[in-house]
């Protein structure tokens, strides 16, 4: 019961991940992303060691298909995992184990992988891909969010007892190995994808201010002054 997209921006080379799920705090299980190296996300019955290991292997120079084989060789429960990998060139690979709960599957496209499990059906994956491709000139974080919204609109997660709400969601985009460019999360909410849009849109208003005040504090205004400007009070 998770749907995700990992992708590389063809214009900038930025790497990103979007995810929504029924489980709590999913953004805390998304460490498999490193600027200039690649992205790996393991889900379903996840293996937490997979994503850091895959990043090490991608950094060594192995391609996604070979990394996937090495993860398989390393894991006796590989058939319960769902894994997607995109490398620094946008090449993708994916695995949806036979032991994941239905409906589960993935789609590998140009520079992205859309994947999920315990979903309403294959239309969810198609809608994630379509949402991502809808405005290819947009910033990667907005494309990732549009992909998640596409997946939710197409029915999202459906478990044994019917539709499952999204309780947590996250979008991460990296351009530099030292810190994330975009890193927004909702950890526990009744409509986490909608809440994630609220957080991302609010963050986008502050993004430049937060970055520049750290880079040159000597010319920075206070956040109180900045908020006053945002609200049209000054």
């Amino acid at each position, binding site marked *: *019961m998770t749907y995700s997209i990992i992708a590389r921006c063809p214009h900038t080379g930025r790497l990103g991940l979007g995810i929504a799920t*029924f*489980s*709590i*705090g999913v*953004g*805390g*299980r998304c*460490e498999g992303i490193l600027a200039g190296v690649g992205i790996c996300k393991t889900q379903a*019955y*996840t*293996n*937490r*060691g997979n*994503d*850091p*290991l895959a990043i090490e292997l991608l950094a060594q120079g192995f391609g996604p298909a070979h990394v996937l084989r090495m993860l398989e060789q390393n894991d006796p*429960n590989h058939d*319960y995992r769902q894994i997607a990998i995109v490398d620094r060139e946008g090449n993708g690979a994916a695995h949806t184990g036979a*032991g994941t*709960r239905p409906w589960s599957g993935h789609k590998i496209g140009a520079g992205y992988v859309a994947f999920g499990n315990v979903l309403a059906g294959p239309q969810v994956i198609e809608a994630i891909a379509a949402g991502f491709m809808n405005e290819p000139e947009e910033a990667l974080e907005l494309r990732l969010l549009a992909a998640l919204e596409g997946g939710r609109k197409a029915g999202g997660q459906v*478990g*044994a*007892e019917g539709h*499952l709400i999204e309780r947590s969601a996250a979008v991460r985009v990296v351009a530099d*190995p*030292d*810190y*994330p460019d975009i*890193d*927004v*999360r*909702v*950890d*526990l909410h009744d409509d986490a994808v909608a809440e994630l849009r*609220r*957080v991302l849109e*609010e*963050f986008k208003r*502050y993004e430049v201010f*937060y*970055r520049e*005040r*750290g*880079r*040159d*504090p*000597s010319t*920075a205004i*206070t*956040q109180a002054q900045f908020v006053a400007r945002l609200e049209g009070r000054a």
Partner: protein
Amino acid sequence: MTYTILGRCQRTGRLGIGIATFSITVGRYCYGVKSMTGVTVSQAFANERNNALALRLLAQGFGAGSVLSQLMANDRYFDYRQIGVIDRSGTSAAYTGPRTLGWSGHVTGDNHVAFGNGLVGPEVADAIAAGFMAKPDADLEHRLLMGIEAGRDAGGQGTRQEHKAERSAALRVYSQHPYADIDLRVDLHATAVEELRRVWSEYKKYETYYRDRERNPRGAIGQEAFMATLRAAEA
């Protein structure tokens, strides 16, 4: 305007961060923690490269005091920064630049740093440290949360005339793995510390279930079935 506790568990060696602030999505500044290596946060007018650089220095074997000196020597704007560091042996170091805003300062001790800026006064930093030390045998994530809550209860951010809301908060703890044990965030909320307690309390109910289904998927029940057992236990 931010208040933070860095902590190391003296029993287990686990390392963690608790943080609350007016800025949104503060959890994105909390990647300066790594298993068996150390923990650091740069705040106030934060230098975005400091946390990654400090972790590399800690991994090379430099102690907390030396790491702090090197960060300061590397940064032309260091007088705007506030930095805390704990190394893997539990030695701590902290710096509060004279150009950080409002009341700002830090309290350091073995295995902890309590620090903040834009605060009501020094009683907030003292309360954070006391909250962290109140139950030394509790889990590190619980102690970090109690530290933050004590800071809030002592007045938190702003001035004695006007409180500044905590809009985001985060809790991260590492043990021996290359991924976090605990990694919870509230990115945009009117009372982020209270919300972080709610998220943490709920997550704790699932923590063992989430871990065990990953390690042994063959024996795992579905999350809906697990929630039914939770509801039965609470009834």
